[in-house]
């Protein structure tokens, strides 16, 4: 394949990254439609913050299934929210600021994901 197009323009390189991001934004969005809305309903409709406490959280995380669901939500949301912010940053900044903010977002995403994973993975199961 030639590196110059017929129009005399340099061929774009590495384009599949943007495609992958575009696609994953939609997939995680669908995932979040179920998990995040479900989470909100559980914590605000089926239950209420006033009756929630550490014990309530621990009880819910008493099952591996719930922990898995919440961890999936964490995964989706980390990608979707931070890549979404990347879109905003890439729209309104350029040059060095854009690079710095993008890196900060990637770093922030790592921290949030690690933190969340740690909580989900390490919180002790309640004593039966």
């Amino acid at each position, binding site marked *: 394949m030639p590196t110059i197009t017929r129009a005399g323009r340099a061929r774009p390189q590495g384009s599949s990254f943007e495609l992958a991001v575009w696609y994953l934004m939609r997939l995680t969005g669908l995932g979040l439609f179920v998990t*995040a*809305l479900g989470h909100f309903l559980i914590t605000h409709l089926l239950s209420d913050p006033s009756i929630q406490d550490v014990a309530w959280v621990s009880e819910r995380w008493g099952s591996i299934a719930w922990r898995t669901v919440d961890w999936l939500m964490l995964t989706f949301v980390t990608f979707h929210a931070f890549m979404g912010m990347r879109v905003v940053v890439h729209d309104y900044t350029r040059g060095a600021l854009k690079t710095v903010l993008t890196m900060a977002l990637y770093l922030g995403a790592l921290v949030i994901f690690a933190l969340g994973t740690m909580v989900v993975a390490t919180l002790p199961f309640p004593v039966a």
Partner: protein
Amino acid sequence: MLLRYRGGEGMLAWAFHRIAGVAIWAFILLHVLDIWLVSVNPELYEEVLDIYASPIGRVGETLLGAALFYHALNGLRIIIMDFWPATTRYHKQLWYGVWVIFFIIGLPVAWQIMAPAFGMAQPFDFGL
């Protein structure tokens, strides 16, 4: 330019989507941090939950829920158009549909969340 240009439904849909998205992103940062407290400082976490249960907290949650719900529904609208481009001809109708669902489901949920703030009983009790 964003304020000078008189865009139609599509531009409003996008602006709301973006504003809601950034707001949700900010909340997620907080939310992962507060859930982290469950494992490192359960007492502090209980205090955070009290804030969620307070009247001001409830206003915030209602707004959060609205942002989340709009972002989710409009996100679905975007996905539908992305994968079935012919539906873009009805993008306005799809957007009106978003609002219809938003209010039909959103108003009772908002009442459920806000009722305690006015000292009223919550309309739904799922016995959980």
